[in-house]
């Protein structure tokens, strides 16, 4: 586990060819293995709805679904997810119809600035599908990995509860 303080030589970045299914669409691209799923979405595919809040795994703004589970896109190496099914905020609206959870966020004002909202909604989808949305207290507990600095928490809880009832 010893760490060398001597800087490593810097070879040209390697390039891995990786394919994903993003919001139902197959995508193939060649990646620097250092790139996170978050940076691939934002900087390579221009899917900027997923936000980089801390890049430290400590805020939840980059939450997406990978193979149906909510995860933090900033803590991943995209190359490890070849073949994965990835869902982001951009994929929720179907034929111009908002997903019930998106609607609920508007109706309960579960947002202010909107920056954490994509992550909150994707996390909320995970919370509901995991079966952790049966009471406001349970939702609070299972939604505490998503920080909202504007403090829209009561609206977020109400929105997740409402959508959980409807779905």
């Amino acid at each position, binding site marked *: 586990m010893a760490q060398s303080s001597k800087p490593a030589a810097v070879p040209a970045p390697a390039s891995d060819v990786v394919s994903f299914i993003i919001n139902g669409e197959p995508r193939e691209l060649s990646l620097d293995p250092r*790139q996170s799923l978050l940076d691939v979405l934002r900087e390579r595919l221009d899917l900027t709805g997923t936000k980089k809040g801390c890049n*430290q795994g400590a805020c939840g703004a980059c939450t997406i679904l990978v193979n149906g589970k909510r995860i933090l896109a900033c803590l991943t190496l995209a190359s490890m997810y070849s073949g994965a099914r990835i869902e982001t905020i951009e994929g929720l609206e179907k034929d111009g119809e908002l997903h019930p959870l998106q609607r609920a966020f508007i109706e309960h004002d579960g947002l202010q600035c909107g920056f954490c909202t994509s992550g909150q909604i994707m996390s909320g989808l995970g919370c509901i599908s995991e079966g952790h949305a049966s009471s406001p207290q349970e939702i609070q507990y299972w939604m505490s990995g998503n920080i909202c600095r504007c403090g829209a928490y009561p609206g977020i809880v109400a929105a997740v509860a409402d959508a959980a009832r409807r779905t």
Partner: protein
Amino acid sequence: MTTGMIGNPVLRVDGRAKVTGAARYAADFNQKNQLYAVIVGATVGLGRVTAIDVASVSRMPGVVAVISHLNAPKLAYGTHKGSIDPAVGERLHVLQDNQVRFFGQPIAVVVAESLDIAERAAAELKVSYSRQQPVIDPKDPKAQQVTPDPRGRVHADRSRGNADAAVASAPVKIDERYDTARENHNPMEPHATIAAWNGNRLTLWSKSQFVVNEQAEIAAIFGIPVQQVQVVCPFIGGAFGTSLRTWPHVTLAAIAARHVGRPVKLVLSRKQMFFTTGHRPRTLQRVALGATSDGKLVSLIQEANGETSRYEQFVEAVTSATNYMVSCPNVSTRYRLSPLDTSTPTYMRGPGEATNMFALECALDELSYKLGIDPIELRRRNEPTVDEETQKPFSSRSLMHCYTEGAERFGWARRDPKPRSMRDGRLLIGYGVASATYPVFYAPANALARLLPSGIVEVEAAASDMGPGTYTSMTQVAAETLGLPMDQVRFRLGYSVYPATPPHGGSMTMASVGSAVRAACIELRRLAEGAAVAAPQSPVFKASVEQLEWKQDRVYRRENAGSGISYREIGNRAGKPIEAQGSSDHDPELPKRYSMHAFGAAFIEVAVDPDVGTIRVRRTVGVYGAGRIINPFLARSQCIGGIVGGIGMALMESTALDPRDGRIVNAHMADYVVPVNLDISNIDVSFVEENDPHVNPLGVKGLGEIAIVGIAPAIANAVYHATGKRIRTLPIRIENMLSH
């Protein structure tokens, strides 16, 4: 005023954009052919850069440029002082010399083909320093204390009567010291700028609460005409004051983009956000109160020391509210600054008042126990009828009304006044209250309203929306003024080409921009009337203004109500847009006649675990007298947000500096702790009816700031009631609950 839009609890008009990910924030405006810039920050707290090993990093594949004071252009740095800049001192000039003034100060910027390469190169850059010992603690014996320069917009000293003598002779007194932590705003969105030059013209997609100031400042720094700079910021991912000023990274992005001749994207890391984007300054305060045994204040002294940088005097209103909150014949306030080797602090939600009221409202609570008088009753006995500092009447003041309403909603009567007397199982329960206040600010603003041939009205102002709902409330004002349904109005903001507005801060957006929007829409209606009476086929052709009458979106000939003409028809017949300018119509004499502030009361219930010391806020009731509420739905959200911020201030937030070198040790989202969902429960927000015709044409006082003021003292007071422990230092943490 016909559609009743103002006062309606309508949903956010930009809600759909925000829940679909379509809302674009600064870092989302990726440009073709864009490069990535990463800032290298100083790793000493004070000193000089003596060498930078540029060569080895420049050779790294994918690295396009390494820019430091060694090769950066000498910039004009023309005079520019925005209304949000400190009046005294000069902003940090980046890459212009080898001086290091604080830990983390930008000393170089690396530009590369990808973010990963740029980050790697920035980490690799070897910098040598000569270092000196920084002074970063206001309690350090080496820290100076200076009197704020009178140009700084905040009074250093004010007094009436003889406060020292009156305290000395008062039958009951309190004399205590308070210490509030340095805080960082930590909005969810990191500061970001994408810069692109086209010849001598610069476009900045940049996070800003004040786009016209950013435009003017960058123009001054580069010595180019203001018109050659455009700033774009339609959405802000929270800011709370940290994006009022234009910080060095904006200049760095523009330097980098010009240097490499391509668009450059520069996003601060979460860690870097702690270095150069302002912070709420730590304050050290003293409050001394003297009272008669029946609770009448005879003397009030509040002294505050705030931190600032060596190169600018940041001042805020840490003692202002003291002068008008209570009735008291002998009052003295004093404000001093400690210039330290840190970056310049800045406004953070409820600037000044939030820390001012922490000390004052805790001291009043302490006095209430000493007197054996209920803390609300104590405030009632000292409620002034006029602003005793200026002898001006209040334009409106609903503080006692807020207390009455809040006490009812909260169930204050259930409180046993004895500390450590209320329990829920093993938990100690405490109730606490505190007052909130914030001044009503206003600054001139402009707007443009444009009737399109389609009948849609576009309204534009260079305003911002960091979350309170500017898009929505301005749409409401425009729709109501014009008599249109909201879906016929498109409000746009966040572009420096739009008519200038004041900063999106100080809770003045509604009062200032709202008044301008209203004026522009009144003017547009006048122009629409003109077009309607001038068109030969119009039902109101050749009618005089006096003959016209509007009902919703149609104008009629008063005596012939049958056939009017709508905006859509007027626009359609015009065949081209009809544009109207408007400016806020504010009587500059008003502040000379009235003392204008919003007031509120915060009620808190805490539960403290006496064994392991955890403190949880179980209930909050916030009642505010803030003038007219444009959108109660969004206003409630805004106040909830301020309360959540206040819970963070009271129980969690503190930026920690290592005194050895000034480094910030907890510059990380896991280490600078802010409330999460599970920390927040049962927040009850309400507004007392307040019709204030004096403050501005819309009768609004603003909400963003006042919501955080009063929360921290109410929590501290509740903690005392629960435990008998009086904590005068923020934040109040488990460790404060353990000692006996």
